[in-house]
């Protein structure tokens, strides 16, 4: 595991937070790491939804099972974590 600090902008939360992800993990695991610091703390869980990840200012999401180090995500990039329906891409 290799720690990768990123900036989490979590949908519905009021601030940006420092989140330590794993560059060897998947985008999904990064979403979980971000959710840990927002959901159930200041953001209500949304059962049935999944959390997708995109770069601030972009509309397209990263593939959930992509390995973080295979994407263009670098340390301290500002990423948006957004609730979505599971079937939507």
């Amino acid at each position, binding site marked *: 595991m290799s720690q990768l*600090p990123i*900036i989490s*902008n979590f*949908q*519905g*939360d*009021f*601030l*940006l*937070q*420092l*989140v*330590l992800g794993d560059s060897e993990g998947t985008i999904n695991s990064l979403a979980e790491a971000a959710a*840990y*610091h927002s959901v*159930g*703390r*200041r*953001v*209500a869980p949304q059962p049935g939804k999944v959390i997708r990840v995109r770069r*601030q200012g972009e509309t397209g999401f990263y593939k959930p099972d992509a390995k973080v180090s295979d994407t263009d995500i670098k340390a*301290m990039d*500002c990423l948006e974590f957004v609730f979505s329906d599971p079937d939507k891409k």
Partner: protein
Amino acid sequence: MTILDRSEWYDIARETNWTPTFVTEEELFPEVMTGGLGVTRDKWEKYDEPYKTSYPEYVKIQREKDAGAYSVKAALERNKLFETADPGWISILKSHYGGLALGEYAAMSAEARMTRFGPAPGMRNMATFGMLDENRHTQLQLYFPHEHCSKDRQFDWAVKAYHTNEWAAIATRRMVDDLFLGRDAISIAIMLTFAFETGFTNMQFLGLSSDAAEVGDYTFSSLISSIQTDESRHAQIGGPALEVLIANGKKAEAERMVYQGIAGAWRLFCVLTGPSMDYNTPLAHRKHSFKEFMQEWIIGQFERSLIDLGLDLPWYWDKLVAEFDYMHHAYQLGLWYWRPTIWWNPAAGVTPDERDWLEEKYPGWNDTFGKCWDVIIENVVAGRMDKTYPETLPILCNMSQLPICAIPGNGWNVKDYPLEYQGRTYHFNSEIDRWMFQQSPERYRDHMSLVDRLLAGQIQPPDIGGILKYMNIAPGECGDDAHKYAWADAYRVNPFSKSAA
């Protein structure tokens, strides 16, 4: 009685400029400490301070004022306000003293800079009284909280806060250092006395003084209004300095300094005064919302003083005014959620009645900020306290050093405003903060926010324990909920009342 009127000798006392011959003019008034955008010193002969006083008048009036302030304190010492006041009010006192006392002392140094390096004798004389005033404000605002030390360790932060790397202290230092302690004399005249003191201190002190009277804290009320009488005098150093700059073709540059001053001051008032007024002040004693207060003071009065001087409103004015609606609510969430990292006990301020008030003053509050508080309240009521404490750091704005935050819930609009500069990416809270950086990057370039320091390995161990140690804040002084969560009882009885609005 044959005493000359002040007007008969006042001008002689401010005719003290001379052109040096044993050193150069530039050596005597170096650009770095004097500033002035290239307006030569002869042009400053026109500087005319509107408020005139003299040494004998000053020491007489100030002696009388001090006699007043200290006697009110002595008379009320036994009135046990500290034991009977709402804990939210006590929190306001703690945040006020810790945030201000040593800032007043830094203002003394800034007044001293104008006394030594100011280009006009009238400015130098007025700033001498300003030095004394700020010396007074420091001493009063240390003497008054000191008596509470033995009851509550958090009052130690009246003197301690500025000496720590606690995040709110870092943000406060940033504002103080950037607006005055780390500025040249002419910038100080404009940023400290005009933008900060005319624009914001007035408001802070008048507002606090009336709030204090409202909750029955007459000691604090009279202290604060006594300080304000000094502020309104020495705040007038800046106006004539602006006039000289404008008259000499430096309007755009002068405006820029005013805009930077307002933007910097606004952030700090927003994080300290906003939550004080709308959350910590007990509901029964709230006369106005922070937004209403800002509208009256900043839009109603300060905007007029800009226009009177012939200055245009800042390019960001609409953005700043828009922030009156939400920014301090976001800071309040940050202060409360990260409460173990601050030196006062923030009141949550979200009982059902308080939420109704917030919804009334800020329509849409329940649908935005209320959404975050809903989750917090559920956790408090369910006893899931671990979920009400942070396990990471907010991203801090590289300008204000405050969390980057905005509107949550269904109005979610939180955003990073990044800037790439000389190979480093900086993060800002808004376009205004990013603009501030761009005005003079050399002032900010190699500064590191608390988050930057953590990532650079300067904070060890890099966990919450290490961070608290780095902030020099420990159990016994770190904050917790002001009312020990008693406010949540309303939700225990009727868990649905929160949706009253």
